């Protein structure tokens, strides 16, 4: 910004500098939300009271809208609604002007400047980011399935677990009640990052359960790696990547155990199942040292991969991971809001 000629004295520059540092956000001294909510509801009531004729009209309009929404979202069997968000997405072989439908077998393709939103039946939505190619595989009430060839999607599903699936070259992401982003590159390698709830990623019986705040890398022909939490140490990430995808073996496991913290229990728990039996005791010992197991979970039981004991251990680990991530998010938000 060019200052007027007389504004170049240091005192005034200091003032402008301080003005620039004024808080952009000031919290009101009282909660204004109840008043807003009250006004929103009163507007609806007043309008209904004063203009009686609006009631049947509104009811008809609501009916039409409801029918429209139902029709838009999932009224047509074997297809889902799709909405253009930016640019010129292509569904099948036609450009999507505003909204339309994607049918089973259709591909949705976005170029570098296009985005689209797919309504996942009545249970959620998937935002397809630029440079992506997605196919609708199945659109049934009991199975909602997409295939992501490459690109990035952000999914949010509000439904019981295991109703929404996304196939990739490296396996399948299975919704367990969650929101997540999934990126797949041109070689078919992927990264799944969970932003709410949990996601399971599965390939030929190899499974990773990814909780809120964690991510997992995937590779074609190898499936999912071991999930890591957002702030996992670089040394742990490197060791796990070596173990998962570079045949790092016992050396990689030892490095991972050394680098792991209590916060990395999610990773160590997954490691229990994947290491050679000869190393499992060492993984359990390290995990138990960092994150003590609940009553009833024993070294012998884990060594035998007793499913009930592993599940009991997982329950306490995932609960702690979830709580920690929520607190971490709140702390990060409060710390960076600039409020006073």
């Amino acid at each position, binding site marked *: 910004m060019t*200052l*007027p000629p*007389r*504004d170049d*004295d240091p*005192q*005034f520059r200091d*003032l*402008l500098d*301080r*003005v*620039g540092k*004024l*808080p*952009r*956000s*000031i*919290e*009101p001294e*009282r909660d*204004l*939300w109840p008043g*807003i*909510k009250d*006004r*929103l509801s009163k*507007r609806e009531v007043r309008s209904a009271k004063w203009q009686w004729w609006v009631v049947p009209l509104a009811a008809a309009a609501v009916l039409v809208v409801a029918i429209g929404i139902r029709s838009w979202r999932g009224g047509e069997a074997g297809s889902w609604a799709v909405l253009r968000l*930016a640019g010129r997405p292509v569904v099948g072989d036609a450009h999507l002007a505003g909204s339309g439908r994607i049918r089973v077998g259709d591909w949705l393709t976005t170029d570098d400047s296009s985005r689209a*939103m797919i309504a996942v039946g009545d249970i959620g*939505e998937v*935002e397809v980011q630029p440079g992506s190619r997605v196919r609708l595989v199945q659109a049934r009430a009991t199975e909602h399935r997409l295939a992501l060839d490459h690109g990035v999607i952000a999914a949010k599903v*509000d439904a019981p*677990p*295991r109703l929404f699936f996304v196939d990739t070259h490296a396996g399948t992401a299975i919704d*367990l*009640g*969650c*929101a997540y982003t999934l990126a797949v590159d041109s070689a078919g390698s992927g990264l799944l990052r969970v*932003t*709410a*709830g*949990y996601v*399971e990623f599965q390939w030929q019986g190899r*499974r990773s*359960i990814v909780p*809120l*705040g964690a991510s997992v890398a995937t590779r074609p022909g190898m499936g999912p790696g071991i999930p890591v939490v957002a702030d996992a140490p670089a040394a742990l990430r490197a060791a796990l990547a070596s173990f998962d995808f570079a045949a790092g073996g016992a050396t990689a496991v030892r490095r991972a155990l050394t680098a792991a913290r209590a916060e990395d229990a999610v990773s160590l728990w997954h490691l229990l*199942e994947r290491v050679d039996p000869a190393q499992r005791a060492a993984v359990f010992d390290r995990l138990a040292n960092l994150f003590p197991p609940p009553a009833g979970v024993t070294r012998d039981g884990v060594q035998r991969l007793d*499913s009930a004991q*592993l*599940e009991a251990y*997982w*329950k306490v680990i*995932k609960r702690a991971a*979830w709580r920690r991530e*929520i607190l971490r*998010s709140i702390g990060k*938000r409060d710390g960076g*809001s600039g*409020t006073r």
Partner: protein
Amino acid sequence: MPAAVPRDSGRAASVADSDALLVRRAQGGDDVAFAEVYRRHVGRVYAVCLRLVRERGRAEELTQDAFVRCWERLGQYRGESAFGTWLYRLAVNVVFEAGRKDRRRQDRIVTLADPALVEPERDPPVRAAGLGIDLEGAIAALPRGAREVFVLFDIEGYSHDEIAEMTGIAVGTSKAQLFRARRLLREQLGA
């Protein structure tokens, strides 16, 4: 390995939800999502209202007006800009529309073409340690036109073109008001 993992997230907005997701949910009539939108943005909206009108009670009313307007017009938000940018602009418009109504009600027309015409209505700034003046107090004590342009340009980062569009003044007037606001603040700093 557990057969199924129960969900920990329900209808309540997740802290991890992005603005875009919340807005889409609110556009679908989800008032829980809209409450989260309010909680995330109320500080910025209130700040701009307070600095433009100076009175806490009036700023609270206008903040509420802005969110009511936001709810009514959510359907018009297409995601072409960040949601916050859209909302703060809407809030500024609410403030200026309210100001115009108030002035019409008082049957008093003040032209902003000549900044000198709105010179009065200054309160003495509150002094504070360190800077020598309380910045917020000094800004609040600026004449209305100068204060509005200063808040929008120097604090909120709008361009003169945008300010002209929002306030109904000419671009040249906006620049003159900014120059004047800075001059007045400099005088207060030197006082």
